[in-house]
């Protein structure tokens, strides 16, 4: 179809895989430090060898995948990682891995990774970033605070976006002036949503500790 298709997590391409993941988590548990208030839903998947840090009130939804095989993954407070999203996706761009040995994938506070979005390993997302569905942040990219990667948009490896940058679907960038009123409203909504997950999403975080 086209090269802009985000690399799909195997669970979407091959049917059985997701089943297997859900029942027998064969891959070894990675070392984790998970905040007690964090929610890791059932069927959420953490794999890799490096440390995975998950902050307070962060929610990992079912079938979301956090991969730390090539480097540690740090997720701040109040982040939301929706189903079928992938954080710490390997490969993607050759330049992103190899040259400097261990690169850390870092999500700051209140980052939202929507369904089917992918964050490459070694990417750094600032406070309040949003990656919409099928959005791709390739490895090693750096996003300032409140950046937004729209659906099907792609941030190339090693790219650096200043804060409030929005990557539109057609690839264009736009730096929004950022209206604090709207943003505050968004923050409030985000916070409420995160809190609300305690009601609806049962956590199995103990399983990973």
């Amino acid at each position, binding site marked *: *179809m086209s090269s802009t*298709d985000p690399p*799909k997590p195997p669970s*979407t*391409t091959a049917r059985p895989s997701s089943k297997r993941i859900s029942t027998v988590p064969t891959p070894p548990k990675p070392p984790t430090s998970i905040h007690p208030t964090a929610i890791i839903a059932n069927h959420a998947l953490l794999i890799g060898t490096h440390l995975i840090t998950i902050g307070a009130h962060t929610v990992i939804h079912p079938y979301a995948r956090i991969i730390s095989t090539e480097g540690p993954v740090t997720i701040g407070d109040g982040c939301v990682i929706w189903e079928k999203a992938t954080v710490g996706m390997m490969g993607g761009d050759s330049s992103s891995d190899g040259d400097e040995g261990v690169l850390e994938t870092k999500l700051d506070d209140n980052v939202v990774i929507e369904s089917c979005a992918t964050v490459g390993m070694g990417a750094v997302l600032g406070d309040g970033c949003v990656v919409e569905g099928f959005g791709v942040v390739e490895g090693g990219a750096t996003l300032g605070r409140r950046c*937004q990667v*729209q659906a099907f948009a792609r941030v190339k490896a090693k790219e650096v976006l200043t804060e*409030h940058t*929005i990557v*539109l679907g057609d690839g*264009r960038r*736009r*730096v*929004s*002036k*950022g*209206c604090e*009123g*709207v943003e*505050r*409203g968004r923050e*409030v909504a985000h916070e409420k949503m995160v809190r609300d997950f305690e009601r609806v999403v049962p956590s199995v975080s103990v399983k990973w500790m």
Partner: protein
Amino acid sequence: MSQQFPYTYYSCSCVDTPTSLLPLSRKSVEARSSSDEEETTFDPRSSRANFSLYPLEHLLYCTECHQMRCSRCTTEEVLCWYCPSCLFEVPSSTVRSEGNRCTRSCYNCPICTSFLTVNLLDAPTEAQRDAEQPPGPFILSCSYCNWTSLDIGIKFDKANNITGQLQRVRNGGIIVPTPKERENQAERLLRKQPNHEEEEEVKSPLEETPAAQAPPDADDFFSNLNSFYKSQLADTETSAGPAEFNVHSPSSIQRLLNLYSTGKKTKRGKPKPMRESLTTAEGLQEYSSSSEEELIHRLATSGWEATTSPSQRSFQERHPPRFTSDLRPTATLLRTKRSKRCKTCRTLLSRPEPKVNTTRYKIKVLALNNIPKVSIRSLNTTPQSLLTDLVTISSSMQQKEYTTLHPLMPYQFLLTLTNPLFDPIKVTLATPTTTPGRVQTRVTILCPQFDVGANTDVWDDALNSTSSQNNPKRKSAAPGLSVASPPDNSDGKQAEAGKIWDKGRNWTSVIVEVVPGVLPGTPAFVGEGGEVREDEGVVECPVFVKVEYESEGLGAGETPERVRMVGEGKEKREVAFWCVLGVGKIVG
């Protein structure tokens, strides 16, 4: 991929009836190959073909002319106007004056064209939240690209009637007079000085009007000019002020004649010609290089990001701006529901119900129900494989039997004609041995002549559709499910010339053999987004379909029994059309 293979396009018959004012050149004659002269083949690549080819569901059928009708050979009448986003119906009286746009709070983002929502500027406090009418200020904001009306310095005090409020403010929050006020003001100015001797008066009213604060824009000049011309027409009127100026007095018409017919008359034989406009109040604007200088300066300092893209400019309502700070939110364009008539005989072909929310039609005569449906698919696809193509994403694997045709290798496709009519039809297919164009694909229809059974009436279908799989009739009812599946292919069923492949109650399928031609040049240029080249990789076979059947004058809608009973008094009908089968893409 632009289209899903395989696809069928129908060439509307309206290309056969040239209504052109000018003699057609050879080339276009080639393109508009008519159904009567079979020797000229339809060329799907010809530049005109794109304008006469339609998917079947876009075609209507005129039961009077017994022709399919496309959007070109139908006339449309608007039944109702409505806003696509708030789905409000707009009365026809106000449609035009409101600029064919929604006057409620439906606005689109000037940056990304997505839908704008009205938000509170500040997040509401606990107290405000429960209040029914939260206090402003409000802004328009785009959820997709985060554009807000603050970017152009506009806030609203009320959450409703955004249009009214927008009308009053220019970007940056400058209050401007409405066009009406502008007009009145301009007229007042001109009325002040019927003959233009004392000009100093003109300035004074300009000051007091709010427009003075804002630099006049094109609209101001237009209205000034307009009222100037009006006043001129009035002045030519003997001793009639602009107040009681009437166009339909013969003398004024006479004057107009003198003014705008050949200049000789203008020179003599009337008091004075309409003079030129002199002042800004009369719409005269002279160029000042300073404006351009500061424009260039702004361009250099603010840079690329501050300028508008062509698409953004074209999306604006009027006066496309150069800088993003001058963009305006765009009111949503209205849409219409239209009824369609045959252009030649004025028969009503489709008439939707005028209500916005219903999708029902009062009248709808589809080509779908009156001409046989021509469908093609690769012989080695089964419904299951079609299904997996449909419902699973493995983009590389998807539709591989269509998208990876190798040059000079024979492929077999199953061409099926389904008969929507209630009379059996006799079909004759014709196709050029090689497709026109640079890529010469050989096409052979193994059985070009065959019959297709009549469509039975609704009750049979109902029975069929509810019947379970092991119903013996199913084999014929839905061949795709059983017949063409690999087991049947394997049990020695070979495609042979002159024989149909399979037939059911109202459908017959034959084999089409396609030998894709060789692509010119390097294989590289197939995938390369260019339209022409892309289409060159696509194999499209033009097929001429001639359908003959006997039916009553009443046309379709007769059960077969009836037709048989009547026996005589049946009339012979013939429908013929070109269609284009997109069977796949050649790989270099």
